[in-house]
């Protein structure tokens, strides 16, 4: 896979280059600012652009660059990284796009497998959301309330994986069950949460689940 990196922290940028090289990817560009990356990928496009959210122009230049890249190169995958899991970053990212896009924490993509897995899912068109953030949306400090309380433990697990942006096959692989079983769980969850049944198709599903979890958080 051809990858471009814009990250103002030299240490992290160099580390990423090494990890990507070890994973067998080709790092075509590695620069400290997003503006520079825009020019470079215009001349020499890549499969996925990896962007630090907090880089110039401050305070979250990576999001602005992601927006431009998505408008200029709709087929280019985008992976946004930050130090802290921020719900408002996630919401901005969902506005930029819901396919071929990802939001992960820097210290969760420091292994070759995690980084490769994330990039592969993005390249395949999925949306990848930091598991800790997805779990935070599902689990609330006050305990599960309302319709979420009606879900079984298994359904909660499936819901979290859906919120991470995983496909039925992805969820099945994570939970060591068949895709058919996952389909049943998804239907059950949608019924219990009164989500429209026609939203079960992958991309609409992620949005529906996140929107639902978000309104749940706001209501409490």
């Amino acid at each position: 896979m051809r990858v471009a990196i814009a990250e103002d922290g030299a240490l992290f940028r160099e580390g990423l280059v090494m990890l990507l090289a070890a994973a067998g990817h080709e790092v075509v560009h590695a620069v400290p600012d997003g503006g520079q990356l825009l020019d470079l990928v215009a001349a020499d496009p890549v499969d996925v652009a990896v962007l630090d959210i907090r880089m110039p122009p401050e305070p979250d230049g990576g999001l602005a660059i992601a927006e431009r890249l998505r408008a200029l190169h709709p087929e280019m995958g985008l992976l946004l990284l930050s130090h802290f899991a921020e719900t408002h970053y996630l919401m901005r990212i969902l506005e930029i796009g819901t396919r071929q896009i990802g939001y992960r924490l820097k210290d969760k993509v420091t292994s070759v497998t995690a980084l490769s897995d994330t990039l592969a899912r993005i390249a395949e068109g999925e949306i990848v959301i930091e598991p800790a953030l997805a779990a935070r949306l599902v689990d609330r400090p006050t305990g599960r309330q309302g319709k979420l309380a009606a879900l079984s433990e298994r359904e909660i697990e499936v819901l979290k994986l859906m919120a991470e942006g995983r496909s039925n096959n992805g969820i099945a692989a994570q939970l060591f069950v068949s895709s058919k079983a996952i389909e049943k769980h998804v239907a059950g969850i949608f019924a219990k949460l009164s989500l429209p049944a026609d939203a079960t198709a992958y991309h609409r599903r992620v949005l529906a689940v996140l929107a639902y979890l978000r309104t749940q958080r706001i209501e409490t």
Partner: protein
Amino acid sequence: MEQDPGLAAVAYPSESVSPTAPRQIRDLVDRLATGASRHQDAVLARVVAFSRTGREAPDLDELARAVGEGLGARWCRLSVSRTGVGERSYRWPAGADQPEAAAESVVAVRFRDEQVGAIGLDTATVTRLRRPGRRLFEDIVAVLGPILHSARLSLELHEQLHTAVGRAQDIAASRRRAVAQMEAERRALERDLHDGAQHHLVAMRMTVGLLEHELSTGATASALARLEQLTTQLDLTEGLLVSIAGGILPVALVTAGLVPALESELRAVPGLRLDIEPAVAGRRYPAPVETAVYFTCLEAVSNARKHAAGASVVVALRDTYRGLSFEVSDDGPGFVPTKARPDSGLVHLAERIAAVRGTLTIRSAPGRGTIIAGLIPL
């Protein structure tokens, strides 16, 4: 001002006027009862009324008018002596010019053997006074004793209150600034930890990720090299953490004390000389004092290097009988201290020193260098 020799008898015959002013008032009331002239009764009654103004301080401008008018003077001046500061005068008619010393006859007003103020009248009026006018004047001076005494207490109380309120405001302002400074320091620390240490930790995690990958793919040689890289990164991160913590309190200051900490920090500064008395080098001071002096000296040196680049700087420490004294002087361009901005670093320095009950003085003038000196009583 000049005491009128003709009136000395009125001012000082303690057996007839003072010290027992209340008795004087009783006598006066007796005499008023037995009937002196109507005019004098009225004047005295008007003056005595000023002693009965309750908790409010007597209105001395009005009193000066009552006395002046009563005695048929051209003008009258009452003054109240205040401890430590000059007297305060009240004139009738209001806005009258400062009288010529030669034209004024001044009589001291006493209360319980202590001079509490004075009354001044135009000399022409005083010389013209005959009995019973002179008697009336004596009575008035006697009655003024307790009134001016009470006025003096009220003035002093007011001043003390004013000072106390001012001091309380200073303390509150200083506390607000201290809180703001602490907050700024906390944020700087947070930033150092985030921008420095955290990045290094993530970089190390990445190295571990690579190491894991290399081990799982059997690349033993590069895994060994990776381990070495990890060790280097660990050392780097440790050094970074030490330097961040050093921003809070230098190790040398905590373990070895003020002088070794200053020496290790300032020894390498070009053009700087340390002039430290052996008595200071040989002892430890309370931790807050050491910290305050340490940072103030460093700040003063850094100011000197910033504003007086190339100047020679001397940092001197002395152990005096009044406490620990320090001085940072340079022979640079200097400045006008009164023109220093209130938000300049100098205010922070003064507050740091004030926090350990010390005082900081800044002496400078254009072309005369700058001396920042402090004394911490111990």
